């Protein structure tokens, strides 16, 4: 079977600013239709990577390939730029009407007025703002402005979409509704997207793969559960947070609580869900209790799983215990407990956590 | 956008058939040139660029070859100019006189005096405010000459102030400050309405103000428009120009501002 060629590929990409190496990416592949998120602290190089991939800044060394063809300043740079779109944290709208803004990319490409009118209407509709068409860009709210920026980006039908923390300056309700809409649109259009964000939950929800960055390097890249549950090093672990993240399908529901099938095991959680719906569970290690045997007697915890300790990592005042219960699970124990329970790698223990302690993320997928 | 239409570049006037006439501000301010020049231009087709500066600067322009012909009234400096080979064909055109003016109160009591040097001595003696043009103009040179003859050194004295301004403005300053000054009759008459100054001393031979035209020497500066300069000089001493000069100012001021002298010798001049 032929592996489809990546839509974007990078080889030994480096960017230097004033002599300092600020970006060092030996290789990166982006598949067509994929949504990749970049997470990392401020100054990690997320923006630099996005701008280098969009050819808005010139790398000090390295090569970029779009659909297997090389892109450089004297080689197809311009044609490549016209196939992508970028949205920044600030909407950066032009001082004119919403219509003029959304049509700017199309005007730049020299499209005819009729064409432009059609595409603008389409995209305003898509982002739920057709009523703003003749409004001045100065007279709309922050959320509306960001929608206009997105409509402007989509109007040119980009093959790759770059988003640099596009929701960061919005207030929570505005952000929520926009993420909802964007997620739906991205799935519908199948647009290859790379976006940078601070918010792990955003990355979790929207992306097919997550790349954790620090100091200009990608430390780990993979599907969200992999990166979040199996961080390769301390930094990644501390950045992604140490919850266990599991994906499951709702198998049974009953009065506000439900059961989801996670890798063959039934886990109970609380929330309003539909049968068959895919959910993501985040379980904080503080909420996982270990015991050498099944807890006897009634407890309010319904989730009791046997598992084998795969790794014990000292974390200063406590220990992090990684388990394999048929699905990965992480627990924290004090040094005292470690001793008392005689926990060692390879030992079998019972892990317990309350249904109410699970943070449920509903991953809304479009019916395919 | 309509506005832009007004901003058409004004066309370059025929630089070929033009001459640069360097003259003094008092000559221009009298208004005589406003009458004479158009006649000349119409007659010969030359375009005259009249640059009015002080006599000193006019002759400096001549020295640099930046003018074609001069019309000035600073005889001593003119003679030096000719002697140093910068000018040729110096011809007497007209004369008028200088007058000593001052406030009606006349604190130095020079009214009616007939000798300018005596009047100056009295002004110095009384320590009365005297305004000098201080700009190396013809008037300034004349003033310095009078001080010299009267044996007084006014520079640096408290009552002696130098304006560095043209004649008209110096008269205004003098009027405001109620001082004395030396002025040419023409400018004084033109401004008389707004000045609070009276003519106090006049008629002295020393106060004679003669005007000459001088061609800038083409030998020194080949770029000068010699033909044009010659035409101008010829015009200024012509009967036609002299007639205009004779009658200029009569209807406005009651007496002529200038007395035509073409053809006469300088020594023969007098009132």
């Amino acid at each position, binding site marked *: 079977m032929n592996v489809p060629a990546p839509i974007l590929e990078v080889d030994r990409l480096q960017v230097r600013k004033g002599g300092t190496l600020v970006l060092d990416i030996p290789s990166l592949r982006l598949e067509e239709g994929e949504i990749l998120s970049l997470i990392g602290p401020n100054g990690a190089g997320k923006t630099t990577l996005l*701008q280098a991939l*969009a050819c*808005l800044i010139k790398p000090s060394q390295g090569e970029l390939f779009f659909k297997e063809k090389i892109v450089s300043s004297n080689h197809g740079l*311009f044609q490549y*730029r*016209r196939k*992508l*779109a*970028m949205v*920044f944290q*600030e909407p*950066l709208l*032009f*001082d004119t009407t919403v219509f003029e803004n959304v049509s*700017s*990319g199309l005007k*730049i*490409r020299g499209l005819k007025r009729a064409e432009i009118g059609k595409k603008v209407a389409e995209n305003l509709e898509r982002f739920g703002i057709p009523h703003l068409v003749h409004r001045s860009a*100065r*007279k709309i709210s922050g959320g509306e402005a960001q929608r206009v920026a997105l409509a*402007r980006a989509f109007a*040119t039908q980009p093959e790759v979409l*770059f988003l640099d923390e596009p929701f960061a300056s919005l207030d929570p309700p505005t952000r929520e509704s926009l993420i909802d809409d964007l997620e739906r649109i991205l799935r519908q259009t199948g647009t290859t997207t790379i976006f940078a964000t601070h918010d792990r939950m955003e990355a979790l929800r929207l992306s097919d793969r997550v790349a954790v960055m620090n100091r200009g390097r990608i430390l780990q890249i993979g599907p969200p559960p992999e990166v979040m549950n199996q961080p390769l090093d301390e930094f990644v672990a501390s950045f992604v947070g140490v919850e266990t993240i599991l994906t499951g399908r709702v198998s049974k529901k009953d009065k506000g609580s439900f059961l989801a099938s996670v890798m063959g095991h039934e886990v109970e959680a609380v929330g309003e869900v539909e049968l068959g719906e895919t959910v993501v569970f985040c379980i904080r290690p503080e909420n996982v209790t270990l015991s050498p045997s099944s807890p006897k007697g009634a407890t309010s915890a319904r989730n009791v799983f046997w598992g084998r300790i795969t790794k014990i990592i000292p974390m200063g005042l406590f220990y992090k215990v990684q388990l394999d219960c048929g699905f990965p699970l992480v627990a924290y124990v004090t040094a005292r407990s470690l001793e008392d329970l005689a926990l060692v790698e390879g030992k079998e223990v019972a892990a317990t956590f309350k249904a109410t302690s699970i943070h449920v993320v509903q991953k809304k997928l479009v019916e395919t | 956008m309509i*506005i*832009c239409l*007004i*901003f*058409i*570049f*004004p066309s*370059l*006037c025929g*630089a070929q058939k033009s001459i*640069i006439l360097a003259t003094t*501000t008092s000559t221009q*301010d009298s*208004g005589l040139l*406003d009458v004479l020049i158009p006649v000349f231009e119409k007659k010969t087709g030359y*375009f005259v*660029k*009249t*640059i*009015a500066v002080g006599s000193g600067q006019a002759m400096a322009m001549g020295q*640099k*070859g*930046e003018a074609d012909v001069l019309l000035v009234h600073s005889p001593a400096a003119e003679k030096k100019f000719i002697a140093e080979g910068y000018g040729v064909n110096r011809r007497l055109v007209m004369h008028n006189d200088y007058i000593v003016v001052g406030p009606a109160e006349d604190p130095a009591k020079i009214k009616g005096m007939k000798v300018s040097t005596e009047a100056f001595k009295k002004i110095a003696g009384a320590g009365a405010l005297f305004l000098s043009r201080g700009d190396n103009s013809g008037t300034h040179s004349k003033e310095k000459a009078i001080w010299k003859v009267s044996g007084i050194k006014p520079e640096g004295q408290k009552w002696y102030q130098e304006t560095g*301004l*043209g*004649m*008209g*403005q110096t*008269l*205004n300053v003098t009027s405001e400050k109620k001082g004395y000054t030396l002025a040419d009759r023409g400018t004084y008459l*033109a*401004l008389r*309405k*707004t*000045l609070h100054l009276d003519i106090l001393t006049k008629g002295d031979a020393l106060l004679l103000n003669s005007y000459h035209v001088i061609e800038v020497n083409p030998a020194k*500066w080949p*770029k000068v428009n010699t033909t044009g300069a010659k035409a101008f000089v010829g015009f200024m001493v012509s009967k036609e120009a002299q007639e205009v000069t004779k009658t200029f100012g009569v209807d406005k001021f009651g007496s002529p501002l200038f007395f035509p002298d073409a053809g006469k010798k300088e020594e023969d001049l007098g009132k």
Partner: protein
Amino acid sequence: MDLILEGILKAFYLLVTFDSEVMKITLLSLQVSGSATLISLLIGISIGTMVALAEFPGRRFVVSLINTGMGLPPVVVGLFVTIFLWRNGPLGFLGVLYTPTAMIIAQAIIATPIVMGITLAAIQALPKNLRLQILALGATRFQMVWILVKEAKLPLLAGVMAGFGGVISEVGASIMVGGNIKGYSRVLTTATVMETSRGNFDIAIALGIILLLLAYFINLILTNIQQRERPR
């Protein structure tokens, strides 16, 4: 006091009767200062934008030069232009001294740094990422600069008004390089100086009033354009 009143009446009279001399002088003022402003617009906005967007060694030095140029004493400009345009000067062969062309040159030299400096500041004040956003929309270099200039049009218009204001009211350089020749290189400012030194105060005041009116109307038009686009 009545002198001013006389002046106002004289101004009214001259305007209403379309006094030919005054009309000629006024038209020339507009032509000379208008042309100079136009030149300063073209050079000032293009170079100002270039410097604002480019990175190059010595950029700070160039910026400080431009800022100094904004305060260039017009009289000094006049002096240097005269020396260059003299018959025996390096550009003497052009034969433009004591012509309106020389006045346009001098005024353009005075106005250009003003427009340049304000353009530089205006473009630099635009959001940092705006340039990248425009490039990401697929714009060519030229399209990008054009869009940026349009975005900065409010302060840019102010710059043009500053440039125009600076030269319509200029007198020192205009007299030096123009010669104040009647019907040829005499403009409102130089004529005012001359009439004052002649003692014709009423005419001088009248010319002054006409100059003020002219400057006011031009700026009224430009201000209208600018304020129409003002964020409310």
